[in-house]
């Protein structure tokens, strides 16, 4: 039974959502995610303060919502977040370490992003979601982590879960999905990937 109802894959070359390429980098000097932020007209000033991990999770979740047509049918504590990566918050950890080793001024604005679960806080704040949230760290995407966490969250009253893989330090390697407890894709979407296929297709190193 496939509960995945939308997905979005972000790499340095493109963003693909539900099998369709939705963004490619322009020749612009701006980082790819910032280009997407502007192109998608997200207009959320807090975005500019976020670190790379939070930006990736934020952009991915906004695109998933757009792809899905919004998630407003769900209550504010019926959407759970299930994220994971291999590198924790290392992109910002390295910058924070440099702030005290090299610049001799430990930066509080960097330090607050030196936890991987901060991205879930940013998504919760953006959407006013008060649901469950879990962040796991694995060498490789572990589909059992996602499916087991989704199952237990559904059993606890969540009706949808948004989650995925968020490695950003050595190039963007991001795959987000939406799973819904009571909704299935239409019958004409035969071949739409389930969780296993999604990660197999996108991460051939699995």
């Amino acid at each position, binding site marked *: 039974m496939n509960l995945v109802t939308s997905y979005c894959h972000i790499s340095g070359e493109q963003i693909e959502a539900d099998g369709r390429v939705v963004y490619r980098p322009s020749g612009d000097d701006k980082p790819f995610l910032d280009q997407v932020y502007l192109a998608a007209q997200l207009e959320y000033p807090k975005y500019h303060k976020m670190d790379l991990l939070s930006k990736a999770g934020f952009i991915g979740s906004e695109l998933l919502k757009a792809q899905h047509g919004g998630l407003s049918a769900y209550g504010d504590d019926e959407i759970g977040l299930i994220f994971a990566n291999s590198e924790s918050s290392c992109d910002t950890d390295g910058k924070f*370490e440099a702030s005290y080793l090299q610049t001799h001024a*430990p930066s509080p604005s960097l330090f607050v992003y030196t936890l991987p679960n901060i991205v879930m806080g940013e998504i919760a704040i953006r959407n006013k979601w008060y649901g469950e949230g879990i962040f*796991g760290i694995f060498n490789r995407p572990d589909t059992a982590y996602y499916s087991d966490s989704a199952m237990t969250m559904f059993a606890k009253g969540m009706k949808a879960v948004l989650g995925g893989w968020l490695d950003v330090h050595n190039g963007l390697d991001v795959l987000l999905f939406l799973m819904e407890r009571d909704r299935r894709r239409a019958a004409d979407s035969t071949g739409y990937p389930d969780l296993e296929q999604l990660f197999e297709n996108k991460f051939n190193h699995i």
Partner: protein
Amino acid sequence: MIYIGAENLVSPLGNNLEEHISLLEQNISGIRSFEKAGFHGEDLYLARIPGLAGKLSFRMLLAGALRSLKGDIDETVITSGRTLVLISSTKGELANDLYRPFSDAVRFLADGFGLAHTPWVISNACISGVHAINTAHDLLGAGRYEHAIVIGCDVLSDFVIFGFQSLFAISDMPCRPFDKDRNGVTLGEGCAVVVLSRSAGIFRSTPHRVLGGTSSNDANHISGPSRTGEGLCRTVARTLQRTGVPKEEIGYISAHGTGTVFNDEMEAIAFHRLGLDEVPLNSMKGYFGHTLGAAGVMECVITLQSMRAGLLYRSLGFSCPGTYRSLNILTENHRKPVDTVLKTASGFGGCNASLILKKI
């Protein structure tokens, strides 16, 4: 029914639970002043484990936690294909490899002990420990595993100390949770372990039950607690509802109580909103500081011990009420049989978690 037991811990107070018990009964703290520990060379109060040093101390503590189980449970559980190990931590082995802070330590543990499954690392700031126990409970409840071993561990580093200093969040005295003179956290380090199982028979001593729990985000701020205690209220309300425990049955709350002005105020507001402000409550941070990702597991270990002994420990560092909403904070050790306990935690990223422990 999910059982929990075989609890043990390492902190500045001792290398196992036995060594902790008499010190806790005497309300002795493991917090000391350390010379030139701060970024500007200033002395800082910390809860450091004596003799713990080196880049690999994290994995050594994890291994020690697994070894400690050998006398406390059926040993075959550790390597069983029906067992999952969960590690709760914020920074792992950061001192060894900032860019892959868990990878080597997890492999070391899995290979060294012959674990059947790769351990899960749960990294949800300061709720990691409570969250990992809840996750273990849910996986067992769903029948995915028969047993789970939850290890909470974080070690002190310049990284974390300088970070909390940059936020002006470190207390200039041993932390004083909920007290009117509190002015920040005392950072600590430690490692704790509990075993959850669907079978009571694997435990050498009578286990307790874990009824499960939930988490909730404040959806308010990434580094400041909610002024209304929204996320903490929601998780506790959901946990009570899901476990079917009436709030009148809660005999004791093992609170988070970091000692910062805003966190403790937030907790007081939340417990007041929940109608739990009369329940005896303490924070263990005055004994071994705030151990971040390890805190939830360490505090559950002490709670399980409190339930066994019928002894609630004084909330060390508290003398004068200092929150707008008053709470029933333990100013002395209190002998009392406790049947049902609420454990809570809150952390950066606006996360909150809670769980219920109960005697068999």
